[in-house]
């Protein structure tokens, strides 16, 4: 398996999808070793995605449990040809999250993409902890479909193909949505910095 560098978000790369299919089929027979590998690798991204989308640790726990239970029980079909196991699990987590948020997952962009972006840097002059806190707050104010794009592409480091599979949209949509999301995040950061 090829893993990303330690200390960053780790996940299996798409080129080992065939191994993931073997792991999943073993897991569904009750193989605890296969489960340990899959759970250890993917529990973090699934949990953090659910936590950032719901803002509630208990909901994130519930979503994580439901996603892996469905995998064990064989609910839904993981097709390695369509993408990585992580993208599949995050797609399942996304459905669970939106069900709980009672928000349509296919929400379209209600915000103008041509809004001018503020010139000043709202992160300048802040300590690292202050930057993290401000960014966390600003991210939480984004509409879910923007927030999740940043969470998957920037925080969990999925490539565009995996993010597109998880989000159930074309790669081009992921790119444009990420661009809009970052512009909007920058505006929110500026607004929050002005208020503080």
């Amino acid at each position, binding site marked *: 398996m090829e893993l990303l560098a330690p200390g960053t978000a780790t996940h299996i790369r798409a080129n080992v999808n065939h191994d993931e299919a073997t792991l999943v089929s073993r897991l569904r*027979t009750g193989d*605890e070793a296969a489960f340990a590998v899959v759970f250890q690798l993917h529990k973090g991204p699934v949990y953090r995605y659910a936590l950032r989308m719901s803002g509630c640790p208990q909901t994130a726990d519930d979503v994580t449990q439901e996603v892996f239970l469905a995998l*064990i029980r064989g609910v839904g079909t993981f097709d390695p040809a369509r993408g990585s196991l992580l993208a599949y699990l995050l797609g399942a987590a996304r459905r669970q999250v939106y069900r709980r948020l009672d928000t349509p997952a296919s929400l379209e962009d209600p915000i103008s993409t041509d809004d001018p972006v503020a010139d000043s840097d709202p992160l300048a002059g802040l300590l690292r902890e202050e930057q993290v806190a401000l*960014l966390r707050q600003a991210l939480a104010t984004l509409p879910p479909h923007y927030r999740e794009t940043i969470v998957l592409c*920037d925080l969990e480091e999925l490539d565009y193909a995996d993010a597109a599979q998880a989000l159930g949209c074309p790669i081009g949509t992921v790119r444009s949505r990420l661009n809009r999301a970052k512009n909007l*995040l*920058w505006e929110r950061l500026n607004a929050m910095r002005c208020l503080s």
Partner: protein
Amino acid sequence: MMPEQSRERKRAVSLSDALRALADDASALGPSPSVEAALREELRLRARRRRPVWVAWGAALATCAAALVLMLPRPTAVRPTSQSLTPWYYNQGLPPARQGGIVRVKVSKSMAGSFGVPVPVTNSPDLTADLFIGEDGMTRAIRFVK
């Protein structure tokens, strides 16, 4: 480079660095241990359900066999006695027994007389005897329990 492009690049770098810091800050976050425990329990349930049919039949047969063995009459527990065993006439011509066991039986006085060993005096119509039975199932020795 145009000033506009320079600003955009600077903004992208600043935001990217801050997002990296946010990701690092949460990299250790994960589900509570109860989630993993619940999932492992589900795995065990599935593993039990998926055992082959012959395993279930084997387990059922083993249970029946154990029940039958328990239902068979078992020899009465033998209390230790200081009396020695007397070789029985059946023993003649048999190879010496290396292993065996003591089985306690009740015999009538009339039958006890035919064993060829001294019969203890008692008012009871029956006598208790210990038989030493070799590994081949043949009786090698006898003693009467007073």
